[in-house]
């Protein structure tokens, strides 16, 4: 029987301080992992440091956004015929210990994607406003797809090849592939499940949701969710 190929993709932007710990964590959590760090045009030494750990580094020529970095990873996975893809953020907020849990659930074959939810674990601390917004979109997503989603913004996910083939299409959002994507996936016939994961508070307090971005995020998500309901392009 053909051995299943698994890859862990790590989208990273200026994470030279956190990336070593993330890579070490992944290496300790599964045996002989294939890791691809997708460098989203970092201005620091993220790609060099990642490379020194012997992992695959795919460098985007300039900063294109979280969604583009992720999709580059999916394209890489598809080109190299991987069966399962795990995505984990490069800022160290996700505990790599849960990779096994995500994979175990995915390999059962009942779902196409498994999302690690921070809201299914009581100890996780999420900033108040962010928590509120995520819960709101979680509620809307759950309502629209008919089963409970608590953390539509989680970047800690595992996916099978079927879903990866879908995600490399042009419809993949460039900035925040969150609730709107889950709804699109559901409407396209994919099954998604959440499992509890522990998250660490961001080590440097850096977040892609800073400044006026949360307001744009809320606007974008509402518009995108609304329009997703009227799209038939999958």
């Amino acid at each position, binding site marked *: 029987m053909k051995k299943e190929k698994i890859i862990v993709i790590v989208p990273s932007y200026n994470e030279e301080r956190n990336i070593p710990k993330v890579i070490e964590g992944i290496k300790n959590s599964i045996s002989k992992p294939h890791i691809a760090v997708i460098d989203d045009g970092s201005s620091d030494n993220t790609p060099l440091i990642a490379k020194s750990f012997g992992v695959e580094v*795919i460098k*985007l020529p300039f900063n294109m956004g979280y969604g583009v970095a992720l999709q580059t990873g999916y394209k890489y996975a598809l080109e190299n015929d991987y069966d399962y893809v795990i995505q984990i953020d490069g800022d160290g907020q996700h505990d790599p210990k849960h990779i096994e849990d995500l994979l175990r659930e995915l390999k059962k074959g009942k779902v196409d994607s498994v999302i690690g939810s921070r809201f299914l674990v009581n100890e996780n601390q999420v900033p108040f406003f962010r928590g509120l917004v995520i819960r709101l979109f979680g509620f809307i997503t759950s309502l629209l797809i008919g089963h409970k989603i608590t953390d539509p913004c989680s970047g800690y996910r595992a996916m099978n090849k079927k879903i990866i083939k879908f995600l490399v299409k*042009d419809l993949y959002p460039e900035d925040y592939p969150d609730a709107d994507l889950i709804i699109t996936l559901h409407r396209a016939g994919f099954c998604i499940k959440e499992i509890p994961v522990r998250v660490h508070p961001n080590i440097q307090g850096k977040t892609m949701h800073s400044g006026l971005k949360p307001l744009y995020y809320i606007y974008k998500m509402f518009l995108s969710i609304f329009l997703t309901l009227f799209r038939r392009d999958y």
Partner: protein
Amino acid sequence: MPLRQKIVALSIAIFIFILVIELVRRRKLREEYSLLWLLTSLVMIVLAIQYDWLVKITHFVGAALPTSTLFFFGLMFIIVINIHFSVKVSRLNDQVKKFAQENALLKNRLEKIEHRNKEHSNKSMDSH
């Protein structure tokens, strides 16, 4: 319309028309984008010559003054051309994204091939 006003309006319209044509000739502006600009300058030329038409349009749209009609159409033109540009920018953004991804993946593949070749040549040198 007073003669002086007519001359100024005509001069501006003709200047824009010639400028757009010249930019297309020098290949600094694509034909595709020139259309809206040429149409606008043509409308300006026609309305400057045929002032009666502008007055009729003013009555038709219910505006008080012909100048308001001109401003209204000017604004409409700017809105349309901006939407047109936004669509273009979105498409360009999409194309840049694909190029960047393709570039990153190809570079990765190239580095791997170079690395493999280097190892291969080192091995063959060792065996000699």
